[in-house]
């Protein structure tokens, strides 16, 4: 089964382990701006979200790229940007619905997630996420797990309601 990154926003703790792991792995430096994955937070209300590449089957980023620098990799299934071909026009960045594409501060080219191509254990973000907000799994397995989790919650709540009444 083909694996993708699944983001379960309810589980995101906003710790940024994914962010710092990604930048270290790819760039040898720890930062937010060099990371391919981002965290969006509202500290006072506690809401937080992980914004990463959603591995669109029909990615807008590849569709709008004028040079073909951004194209779906046939092996990994994720859109990849070739920095040598990229002209830094930023169209992919603007068209990504998830804010998953950024402009590199040094090369000025677009850069994005490449699933840590070649890493045996899979993408660092999913490997390091302590809350299970990012998982590296097949969509089918992810849906099955989520269904069971939600069903369990509903049954527990219903049992509780019954006890109270």
């Amino acid at each position, binding site marked *: 089964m083909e694996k993708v990154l699944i983001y379960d926003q309810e589980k995101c703790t906003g710790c940024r382990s994914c962010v710092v*792991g990604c930048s270290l792995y790819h760039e040898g430096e720890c930062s937010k701006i060099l990371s391919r994955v981002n965290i969006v937070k509202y500290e006072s209300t506690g809401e937080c979200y992980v914004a990463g590449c959603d591995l669109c089957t029909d990615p807008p980023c590849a569709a709008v790229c004028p040079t073909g620098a951004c194209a779906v990799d046939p092996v990994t299934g994720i859109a990849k940007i070739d920095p040598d071909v990229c002209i830094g026009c930023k169209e992919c960045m603007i068209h990504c619905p998830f804010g998953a594409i950024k402009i590199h501060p040094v090369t000025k080219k677009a850069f994005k997630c490449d699933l840590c191509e070649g890493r045996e254990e899979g993408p660092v973000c999913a*490997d390091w996420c302590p809350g299970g907000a990012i998982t590296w799994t097949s969509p089918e397995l992810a849906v099955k797990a989520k269904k069971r989790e939600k069903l369990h919650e509903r049954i527990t709540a219903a049992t509780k309601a019954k006890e109270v009444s």
Partner: protein
Amino acid sequence: MYGWAGQRLRVDLSKGDIIKEPLSYEYRKKWIGGRGFNSDIIYNEVPPEMSPFDPRTRVCFGMGPLSGTAAPSTGRVTVSCKSPLTGGFGDSNMGGHWGAEVKYAGYDQIVVQGKAKKPVYIWIDDDKVEVRDASHIWGKFPRDADTIIKEELKDEDIHIVLIGPAGENLVRFACVFNDVYRAAGRTGTGAVIGSKNLKAIAVRGSGGVKIANPKEFFEICNRLRQKFKDDPMKIGLNTYGSLVLINFANRDGWFPWKNFQGGATPLANNMSGETHSKTVLKHREGCFACPICCGRFTEIKEGRWAGEYFGGPEYEHAVPTGPRVGIIEDANDIWHNARLTNDLGMDGIETGAVISTAMEWYQRGLISAKDTGGLDLEWGNEEVVDQLIQDIAYRQGFGDILAEGGDRAADKLGLGDKGHYYTITTRGMSLPGDDPRGLGFGYGLSFAVGTRGGCDHLRSLCCLELSGALYPGLNTKYLGDERPAKPTTTVGKPYMVYYEENQKAVTDCLNVCCFTTHWSYAVLTQDQLDYFNTCTGLDMTLDEFLEVGERVYNLERAYWARLMSGAREDVVPERFTKEPMPQGVEYQTNVGATLPIGEMLPKYFKYRDYEPGTGFPSERKLKQLGLEYVADDLKSLRKKYMSEAEKKKKKYYY
């Protein structure tokens, strides 16, 4: 430069100066960072006779070389000052993400001195630093000030250090936060910040932290993170927060019940992590780069406080304005009180401590309704606790006296030694919610000698005697003996406290979270050395590394020595040595216990190489640590401390 940013930012609010000071290789090697940098500044720049509210005083924010990196839990910040609560050395540590942001902006430490003419906040935008008007946010809760500043600066992604109204009103135990709810709770740093008319420090950092050996560093970080996946403490803390400790505390009799009159109570489970997670947990939170994520976000759903929400609480934040003041029946009261101390910006521990002390004075007839302004200080009276928390923050009525802290309040009310018996403090600082008759004799020993006011669980955090039992062989590895892996024994505790204090100090210099190295022992001292060396490119040995911790610790001890605080003040509150632990529940494990501190202190002094009479660090030890100037400072003071005049003096430091 690898690891460090290489510079300190100094902001003088009186003169309006913004100075960037480079940090030399020798300096960084000697002190490493975080608490090390801070303690050095405080020792050198805040003399013993200076008032904690003097405009010339310093408040330091220290980050470490690992801050902002991929090592486990690198978001921590040490905040240090001369404490308004004790008059002595003070510091506190906060989580969150601000520390990483400051490193990304290019600074290892921020020192604030002077006093602004009107309320201000500091805005650090990488290398651009400015001081901005804060009159429109003065008086606001941190959560509101945070929102307003982000709107004003048009960036939701910045991180902000904030104080609340209590800091502005110079409540002696006011605290400081970053990311709204991550508190540096203890020793009153918030009041020092407030005394400078400083409301906030906002930061945006668009840089990063360079790593000397990125591949090796990644491998170490990865190996440690894999370890955390099935680490028992990580699982407990992640699932239930630090409230996971509640039922253990109750069973082992260290649960703070009614100002430590007892150590266990039947309804403790009302506020346990398990109960919290089923009733009010909104979601889990994590500090920067943390593999544990023990943070909670709470939303009260029922009862009179329904609708209130906040980040937290931790165990130590919830128990003081809960069971410590006799409240346990309705947990929503406990969550509400924690929300209040957060919004008002006060140390939950000191707030609950001083209220519970006042309640015991009231119980025993030392004070009456005429002292309290008519407030009925009955144990468990939530209306009164809710009122008092606010009165303390705004210095109104009886709250104005309590805002001075327990020992000063006792003196203001003329209660004498009898009043002081119930203040449960050492060197003026209150014990957090951990009764040493149950928590552990190692902890009890460290309460007597800790260098930010004693009564303090975080100077040693000697969890080798607690969670150490979850890691078979760990006590033997460091101490040569498994017997100390049990709280209520004195066996091996002097060495345990010595080792853990040094290790904790260097952990605070790196500014990584001690939950990764104590409570959870997934990260061992050798691992810390490895990630430190591969990150910075240095080649420190294990003993050089731990020696930094010992150096910092001795410097802080010498700070107290200059204030004439030494062996005589190495005491724990008498309740713990005189009163045998009563039975609170039938499964309690420490009924009858008292803390045998006397058995452990002399041996501990040997490890520390403190002089037996004064308790000051010996000249030999200070020279060994490269602290000759400190040895010179203490030379003339040793005799003075032993004089009859000093022996008779009343003990507190400002």
